[in-house]
């Protein structure tokens, strides 16, 4: 251990706990990732499904709703995250009562996940064979049946894959949010590593993010494979 302390004095100096401790920042990154994924994911999923079913030739074709969904997704997606972060600060203030810290970051993070995930979900469930929809309709299936039993179920493996992609991209965004005071591993890497010339801190923070990303990717791959029964 002393050898490690000798090699990476700043890393050890930050300690495990406390305001700047490693466990604290890991916890903050996981906190932001989890809640932003949950809020943004649920709403993004709804948008993604909406984009497919309301589209021309969709199972609940509705031009007005489609255009609303499509425009919202396109516009929000076009705003770079770092700008969005600053841009919606007043909204964040109104919702969570503060503009800094991990909880405040949840607002822009979720907002950013929504269009990203919506487009991914749209692509994933569009890949479901139209013939399956038609067959289900010929059996008298309702719109909810078509959404849950056909679209979401048949695309489940593909949905897990795009969820993995979204999560990884979200982890990257939490690091960026860290730069403006949201805490987490990104904040540690920049505020204590980069800004204070403590390269050992930057290195360890990067490795921890990397481990998290690899873990998410591997879990996603395993789950996607386990869910798929279409090629055996």
């Amino acid at each position, binding site marked *: 251990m002393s050898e490690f302390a000798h090699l990476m004095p700043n890393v050890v100096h930050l300690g495990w706990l406390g305001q700047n401790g490693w466990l604290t920042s890991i916890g903050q990154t996981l906190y932001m990732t989890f809640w932003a994924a949950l809020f943004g994911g649920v709403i993004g999923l709804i948008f993604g499904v909406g984009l497919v079913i309301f589209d021309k030739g969709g199972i609940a074709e509705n031009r007005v709703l489609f255009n609303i969904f499509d425009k919202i997704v396109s516009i929000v997606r076009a705003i770079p995250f770092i700008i969005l972060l600053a841009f919606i600060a007043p909204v964040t203030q109104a919702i969570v009562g503060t503009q800094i810290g991990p909880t405040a970051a949840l607002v822009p993070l979720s907002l950013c996940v929504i269009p990203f995930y919506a487009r991914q979900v749209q692509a994933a469930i569009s890949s479901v064979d139209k013939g399956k929809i038609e067959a*289900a309709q010929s059996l*008298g299936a309702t719109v909810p049946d078509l959404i849950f039993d056909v679209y979401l179920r048949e695309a489940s493996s593909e949905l897990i894959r795009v969820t993995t992609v979204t999560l990884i991209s979200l982890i990257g965004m939490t690091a960026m949010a860290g730069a403006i005071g949201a805490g987490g591993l990104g904040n540690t890497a920049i505020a204590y590593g980069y800004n204070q010339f403590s390269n050992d801190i930057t290195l360890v923070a990067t490795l921890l993010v990397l481990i998290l990303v690899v873990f998410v990717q591997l879990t996603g791959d395993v789950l996607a494979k386990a869910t798929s029964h279409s090629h055996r």
Partner: protein
Amino acid sequence: MAKQLINLENINVSFDQAGNTVQAVKDASLQVEQGEIYGVVGYSGAGKSTLVRVINLLQLPTSGKVEINGEVLFEKKDGVTKQIGTKELREKRRNIGMIFQHFNLLEEKTVIRNVEFALKHSKKKEKEVTAQALKLLKLVGLEDRKDFYPAQLSGGQQQRVAIARALANDPDILISDEATSALDPKSTTQILDLLKRLNKELGLTIVLITHQMEAVKQVADKIAVMSSGEIIERGELVDVFTHPQKELTKELIGTQGELKKAIHLLDKDAIQRLNHEEWELAHLTYTGTNVVDPIAAKLYKDFDVEVSIIFGNVDELRGTPVGTLFVTLKGAKDNREKAIAYLKKAGVDVEEYSSREVIA
């Protein structure tokens, strides 16, 4: 007369494609009686699939009337549209099973869950649903595969699951949209036999769309021929096959090809040496097995007409053997006329091609 189950009247369907209006179905009417197997044939793009999708309103017609079992599901005449509600339509659809070329099973559900999916809105309890699904899988001979996923089954087996699923709600009608087109010959025969059996045992009315003439030959009672969105010919299977009226029908059932083959096989040199007036080519068609008399011998003995067989073929149309013979008849014109009259009286259908026509 059996009850009319499907009545499509003056159906038009048009699509907008990149600014152009494409008329997929033109003023087509189709009546199918209870217990029939009705084949709809034609080349790809003839509008067959579009027309039958109108039956369960998977395709809304641009105009026309759709009547199933005496109930109007859709009617649009002179700009006035009548259509049953979404909920009723869903219920009606459960009375019209449908199977597809690519089976369209849910790949993430097991075989039995696929069948149970069709019963999701039935009034039955869960146990009864499972029992019904098992009963149907037994009917198609796949109860031992109930926990398999579709991808683990062969194409023929998947189509049988699709049939079980289509029959889950005890429908009166089954629409088969190119259901055997993606299958190998053996599976095709199995599926067609199954359809025939269901037709007999359950009294199921079947509308069979296909471009495979072999399929309709095996099972259909009646057929309609479609081309560019129109029904150009229709009737009893044997009638249409033995007396095709339209060129396209002849092409589809292969008469055209056979004639070409016959002409090709003729010994041109030997023929050239003969007087044009003394021979002709004849296409003889006969149904049933009543024509087993030694025709050639009879024509030679009684009419002094020499018969040379170029080639022959026996087909089976729904169990009725239909024979085809291409022959040259040599002899004096009067004698040939008498011989042909004799053949016609004996129930043989004769189509004559004069020597000039053949040489040209």
